[in-house]
């Protein structure tokens, strides 16, 4: 494949998945400032390795690869901040959602309880739920993004939902 074609395909990838990467980053880090940085770093890193990723993808969609880059960068961000106690992780770890007016009127409390419960899940379960429900990724895509088997991913998501139900129920349930 020539360079011009490769660049066109990268532009297509960027346009198609900017929102996905940003949504993932936002729900992963919990604020717009860090989500922007994470998204920017994700695409810069993707740009550097795009040709190889295309060769290795064997025609499969590259969204899981992009999300995996974001996932690794987010892990690095948290690790770096953990080494610097003056910047509390809690400041960037608060999940909040963007909603329509209708959502806010009808179900603000329920959604807040759900997001509050998600915060209490282990990292891998929380990430799997973000990929499934914010990005609409299927089990196979999530498996590729997280470096797991399809079966293990299915179990992970099932357990994440079960644990979330228990957490929400323990905190008073949803109406």
């Amino acid at each position: 494949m020539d360079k011009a074609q490769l660049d066109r395909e990268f532009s297509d990838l960027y346009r198609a998945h900017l929102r996905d990467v940003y949504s993932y980053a936002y729900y992963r880090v919990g604020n717009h400032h860090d989500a922007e940085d994470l998204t920017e770093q994700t695409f810069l890193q993707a740009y550097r390795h795009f040709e190889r990723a295309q060769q290795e993808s064997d025609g499969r969609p590259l969204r899981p690869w992009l999300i995996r880059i974001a996932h690794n960068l987010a892990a690095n961000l948290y690790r770096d901040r953990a080494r610097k106690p003056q910047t509390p992780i809690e400041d960037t770890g608060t999940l909040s959602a963007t909603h329509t007016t209708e959502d806010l009127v009808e179900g603000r409390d329920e959604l807040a309880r759900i997001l509050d419960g998600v915060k209490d899940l282990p990292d891998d379960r929380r990430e799997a739920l973000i990929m499934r429900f914010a990005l609409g990724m299927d089990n196979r895509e999530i498996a590729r993004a997280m470096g797991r088997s399809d079966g293990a991913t299915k179990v992970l998501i099932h357990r994440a939902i079960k644990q979330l139900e228990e957490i929400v129920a323990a905190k008073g349930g949803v109406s």
Partner: protein
Amino acid sequence: MSDPIAADIEGLLRKAFAPVDPPESLATRLESTLQELTDLAHEELEGWELSSMRDPRNWVRPVAAVAIGTAAGAGLVVLRVRSQHRKQKKHVQGLELAERTFRSAADEVKRLVERR
């Protein structure tokens, strides 16, 4: 039979995790950063002393700079033209937009060719 409570939780999760649109400033910043990478690669080439090219051990660096510059430059034609469209979108309609699109793309390609 599906579990109604689980179905309820899944429905709420879909609502809670509504996709988030990236701010306009992010795309501008990202495209600008890619442009800087291109410029850096270009400066790297210009600053290279031709005399050092006699030694094959020094060929790797400029070749890498050309590769990075070419890749980022060509990719940015599309991104930069798109960025200009966002600025123009409020003022331009129909045929005028199509004409500007063609002209913008042609200008970007010309700029990149002239810089090499």
